[in-house]
């Protein structure tokens, strides 16, 4: 007997490669989306800071915009710089 696989359709779930499950700002899952978004993934991506903390991009932008003077990571209070 010879079994040939003609095609294979698998099922997978995607997830962000991050050191935490939830966004530290909105407390929602990274794999979900921030409270303002409807669709996860491409439409609500994550960003990493140089301090290695990551957030939903919309969450951290909102946070940074609300800060008057210096922009800090809400988790570790270091200066926030986007990781290149």
């Amino acid at each position, binding site marked *: *007997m010879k079994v040939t696989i*003609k095609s*294979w*359709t*698998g099922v*997978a*779930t995607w997830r*962000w490669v991050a050191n935490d499950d939830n966004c530290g700002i909105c407390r929602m899952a990274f*794999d979900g989306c921030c409270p303002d978004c409807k*669709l996860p993934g491409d439409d609500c991506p994550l960003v990493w800071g140089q301090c290695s903390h990551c957030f939903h991009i919309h969450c951290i932008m909102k946070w940074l915009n609300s800060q008057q003077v210096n922009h800090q990571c809400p988790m570790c209070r270091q200066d926030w710089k986007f990781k290149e």
Partner: protein
Amino acid sequence: MAAVAPVVSLHEQHPDDLWNKICIAFPVIANEPLMQEYLEEQVLNVLELICQHQLSTFIEDYVVDKIQHITMQKIVPDFWSKFCKRENEMQGFESFRDAVYSVYNSLISFCPVFERLEKLRNISGIHRVVNGENTLLGTFKVIIRSSLLSQLPLNHPKITEDFYRISFKVFCNSDNYVGDQDDSPEDMVHCSGCEQEIGQCQCQSIILVFHEVNQKLIELDLLERLAGEVITSLIHLRIENHVEESCKGSFDTSHISTLEKWLDNVVMGWLRRIFNGSSENVKSEKKTEEAIKKFKQKLAHFLYETYTRTRIEQLFNIIIEYPDSQPAVEDLRICLQKTDLRPYLTQKLQRALETRLLHPGVNTPDILTAYVAAIRALRQLDSSGVLLETVTQPVRQYLRWRDDTVRCVVSSLTEEGPSELADELVRGEALQLDEGVPSDEDTENWEAWNPDPVDADPSKTSKSRRTSDIISMLVNVYGSKELFVNEYRTLLADRLLSQFSYNTEKEIRYLELLKLRFGESQLHYCEVMLKDVYDSKRINAHLDSDPNFNLDKQQFPATAMILSAQFWPPFKEETLELPSFVKEHLQTYTKAFETLKGNRTLCWKPHLGSVTLEIELKDRKLNLTVSPIHATIIWHFQSKNQWTVEELSQIMHVPSTVLRRKIAFWQSQGLLREISTDTFLLVEENPSRSKCPVPAEMVCEDEESESAMASAHDQREEELQVFWSYIVGMLTNLDSMPLERIHQMLKMFASQGPTAVECSLQELRHFLDRKVREHKLLFSGGFYRLPKP
């Protein structure tokens, strides 16, 4: 009494002389028959004489009294004596006839006496009212009537009934005869009217007698009193039969107008014939016309009532056949307004529903179909919706009790092909739920306002009853949208993961329709699910076309369904070790994905998916589409043609129970054979099979269409698991607590926030009891505590 002479002062004549003369004029006094040979002049003289002596009132009273006496003593007993015995209907018929004739004859025989008394009245110029009647004849009729009724024997209706039944039979027969001529009368030996042999048919004579008797009874003013009841009951019987016959099993035509016409023509025809004496005598007095009118009103009401009752008896079938049975429902609606049968309808229909629908032998989809039909039919029947609400109360209660109700509703909502619910969904209206605050009634149309029927539930607004549509009513069976939306989500997930078609247009259409009803926010998750499928298609195409990913160099093409785990219902966790080359391939795919979408990776669900296989055997070639686990099983048989379940289980990391089920599929395909318990052998050649042509490509449905999703029960379990950590914390701090206290604490701490999980006291008790059984809790004296470590 007759011998006593009146004590009046007399001028010329001797009292005896006068008395004799009076006796000659009124021989009744002396119990003698009336002699006609006395000349009218002589009589007139006597009358004048009476008048002169101012005896007229006395004489009149005396004569009437005498006649009354005779009536009581003789005529009436004579009449009733004919009623005592009968051997058959015909004899009853004759007895009744004789009785009426005899009483009529006595009336005739007294007529001259009354004429004379009337003359006496005229001469003396007296006008008086005796027994409520102006004329003496009227007085006499009253006497006869009253004395007849005062001596009423018990069994009198029997004879009367005989008489009228026979007559009616003859009538009906002659009516039918006109109707269907083709029923050749030669075949019949007996006349169906009088049941005599055709040759000696008595129909004509019966009709003749019938008319005569009726005429006499009318003259005596006795028809109504003596025969009214019997006639009514006979006609009722006839109406019942007719209604039953005419609306047997046909719900697609309206019967009201034909029945009304029938009443008008046939039944009223009989009545007119009875009241007017004969059919030829069309001219009728005003009084009889009025009596007939009154009778007709009564009969019309009875007709409606009978018809309504018949329809109510059939209502369950009518509902099932709705909308084909629309005319019948419309009939019933009209009739219900004319009769007072609403409570009867409610009771009957509820019972019918309970006996025919609400038992374990009926499938849930059938109950739902009936419920939908009932909603439609009853809404037509009663636009206020009160009837619907009361009647279907048990149905809702029952549906709530069934586990698969939600699933059935959701699947029939999105079913392909003609489905009432799907049509209803397309009509699209915002979902109305009971929970809404009662809004103000329409003020624009206040003149058309009608109060709710008395059986309405006062706690609900009539508007909510009027407007809620079928889907809302179905959703209201459970009272919450969430259950339905969750069920829909699971169903959608199942469908997407069993078909693996990337064409989601149809699903998107349904989703849009559902959104119209359930609201955007509720179905947000489903939207993401569909978008996942769409995105997967794009990603697959992209990865496939990009040569950098080396996907085209692989042995076989692989595609993936990439899902957003947060938005899909929880998957059933199953393990499966795929063949290494497949794993490698999927790994390559993951790498490609990671490159494409930086910082994201894939977690494969190895047990989900679909695989197209080509299996070359010695004698044939098979093309199959199977699940990964099936593919893996058969792939392992390639290297070694005999495996035990135990071995396979070890190599595939699949429990042996699951494996046995899956192997059964290959057994049914004839590829594997169980040579001894749990040991399977590959069958390369199948002599019996090789002869018959095998279809080149077979898409095999999984024999048991299992859900890829965790069941609602499992999901709930997981939710409750959240509480467990709280409970452990509580009990560690507070040592022991009663159920109520735990529940309250949970409400305070655990049930807050956006993802609040509701948990009833009952549910919590079950949960805790199970923990007790699992020895994770101790329960004594109403208190729960943690076991000592």
